[in-house]
Structures are given as C-alpha cells and as structure tokens.
C-alpha cells in the first residue's frame, strides 16, 4: 500500500486492457488504470490517484531543457 495523492510520473512496463504495470522509480512498481490515455510500453505517464491522466512527451521534455539552456546563454550576452 502506498499513498500518493499528487500526480507523479511513472514508466509503463506492461499494458493489459485498461490496466498497466508501471515503475514509479525507487523500486516502486504499481498498477494503474490507463483508460484516459493511449499508453504504450516505454511511455512515461502522469499518474494521479491510480489513473494515468496524461502521457508525458519525452521529446518536449528534452526540448524544454534545451530551450532553457539556450535562453539563458542567449540572454547572457545581451
């Protein structure tokens, strides 16, 4: 039994119908309902109260990090 009311990211390991086994990291494996999303194995989903509410976009995550770095460097010169 684990208590997590806030939304946390987890990696999808296996999908069976509307239930997926996910890895929350730190050795914590759990089952979540994926009815609300189209999740595949390897995707990162945002889990809130036992339900995946969104698939996290890995490309966008990398893009965000890249943009931040660029922005900081670019404006440094101004």
């Amino acid at each position, binding site marked *: *039994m*684990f*208590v*997590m*009311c*806030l*939304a946390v*990211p987890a990696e999808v390991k296996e999908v069976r119908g509307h239930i997926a086994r996910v890895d929350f*990291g730190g050795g914590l494996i759990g089952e979540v*309902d994926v*009815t*609300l*999303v189209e999740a595949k194995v390897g995707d990162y989903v*945002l889990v*809130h*109260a*036992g*339900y995946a*509410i*969104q698939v*996290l*976009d*890995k490309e*966008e*995550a*990398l*893009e*965000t*990090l890249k943009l*931040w*770095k660029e922005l*900081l460097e670019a*404006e440094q010169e101004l």
Partner: protein
Amino acid sequence: MLEKFRDRELSLAVAEKIKRCMPERKVKFCHVCGTHEWTITHYGLRSLLPKNLEVIAGPGCPVCIVPSSEIDAAIELALEGVVITTFGDVINVPGSELSLRQARSMGGDVREVYSVRDAVEMAKKEPDKEFVFFAIGFETTAPSTAIEVLRSEAKNLRFLISHRLIPPAMELLLGLGELEIDGFIAPGHVSSIIGLKPYKIFPEAYRMPTVIAGFEPLDVLFSIYMLLRQVRNGEAKLENEYTRSVTWDGNVKAQKLISRVFDVVSGRWRGLGVIPKSTLSLKKEYEHLDARKFYKIKIGKSRDIYPGCCCHLIMVGKLKPTDCPLFMEDCTPQTPKGPCMVSIEGTCGIWARHGVRLYR
C-alpha cells in the same frame, strides 16, 4: 531525466535572470496548486527570489476547500452504518463538529483509499454492506470518478460528489481585487486535463499574465521568469512552460467523460463562499448512484471556520500561515484547527512540515 529539472546550477542561473529582470516596484504572483506550494517550500525557492517579488498560494488544496456541510453529510452516513471511502487527508479534516476520523472512533466504518478503484473493489468484496465514495478533488480526479460511475461495477457503491473546478476559483481571486496579483502560475496537472484553452480568459478579459507550470523546481522558477518578462514588457499572454504534459486541447477523452457524467453547477467552497459554475454534480441519468439523492441528504447549518482560524484568508493569499496567531501554537499537524493545516497540500500543513516559522 528528472534530475535535470532539479539542476542546481541552472536553478541559480534562472534566479539570477529573475533578479535582473525584476522591476523596482513590488510584484506578486499567485499559484493555485498545493503541489506548487510544496515545490516552492520544499526546495526553498522563495529564498532565491528578490525581496520585492512575492509568490502567494491561492485556493489550490482540494482537501481544504471541501465545505464542512459535505464532511458533515459523510459523517452522518458513516454513523448510520454506511461505509465511507475517501482519500487519506479528507478523513482528518474537521467538519462542523467532528472529523471522519472521530466518526470512525465512534464506530463508523471510514476507510482511506488511494484511488476510487479501491472503493469499487472493497464494495465488490463486501456486497452486504452499503458503500459511499466521497469524491473530492479538482479536474485531475474527476475523470477517474466519471470512469467508475460509468462502469458502475458495484451495485452497493454510491457517490458523494464534491468535485470542484479551478478556473472559476481563479476568477474569484481576481474579483477580490485587493490582492493586486501581477500574474498567475497555473496548475500543470489540472491543465493536463483541461488544456490551455480555459485560461484564455485571464490575459484576454483580465489582462493577467498566465503561465502553466510544471512541478519541478526549475519548472516553477522558469514560469516565474516567464511571468516577469511579461510584466517587464507590459504584456498579458497565456504561455505554457509545462509542454511535456500540457497541450492546447488537453486530455479530450477525460473532458468528454467529465461532461458525460457531470453537470457544472454553482457550489460552496470552504471559507470562500459560493462560486458560480465551479462544482460538479451527477447528471440526472446517474442519480441512482448519487448518495445525496439516495440517502436524501439534507444540508443543514454548518461551520466552516473555527474561532481564530485564518484558513479562509490564507486560502486566498491574503495572509501567510505565519500571520495566523494559531499557527504552530494551538494549530499543528498533530492538532489541526483548520483544513489548511490538515492536508499535505494545505499551505499551513506544508509550512509546518518544512519548519517554516518566520517569513517576511
């Protein structure tokens, strides 16, 4: 990858940017999410900000804003022998007189669940008992309740719906006027469901800079920087910092489920009064699952605020927990007087658990 969103060097660099971008006047940004308050307090982000830049917490704790009349209703059902299932923190929130935990010590069957699914499984295992799921939470939690209402797998499980919507509460804050907010840090998880679209009104009708933010320390720092740039340039735009989860349209499937199962009605928020079009209520075709109808729940007189408790002012950012005379005196996480101290998403509870005792 997560560590990169918590990178110390980058965080300090953004803090430096914020300092350079900062005007001389006071600037105040408001977030409306318990998890944002947690990130800001946990990582000590306020200590990185200029003295004249304030980040205040709005009504973003889903547990705190449940009116005591609804907690009273759940307590009454529990004492009549109905099994009440709900999320952990709700059990400790005082209603008008009692909390659900106290009702449990008086013999009521009150159970904490992590997910509405747990309530369904429990009800299926114990078909002789009547179950109610006390459904609290914002747009993030409402879709899961909608799924289980539609599945309706346990005939002995009914729903006491207490879901609330965030954008109407943000509008209420602006209506208060006196807060003098310069920008909104909008909640990334609620927005993952509803998308960017519903926030359009803030820059367009209120000229309020609005940035949707994620929950890592760099997400929050960057969203503050994005807001500050708008303030500096005299702009009011809707921007998205949390692009890895939030899109313009949001989770359309979840939105469809919400509108299929619920009507949007006006409803009371604890300490804030009635907010128009801010509350979900089961549609007529699901009224056989509606605990209010089934048990003919009557909402009587209730007490939302205890004498001396400043929760209602803290929830709209008018006061800080450290301004409340009860904070860490009569009101502690072990002896909470108000909902803001009970919940791990409440501002008082977060400050208390992180040892914040003095704050300018």
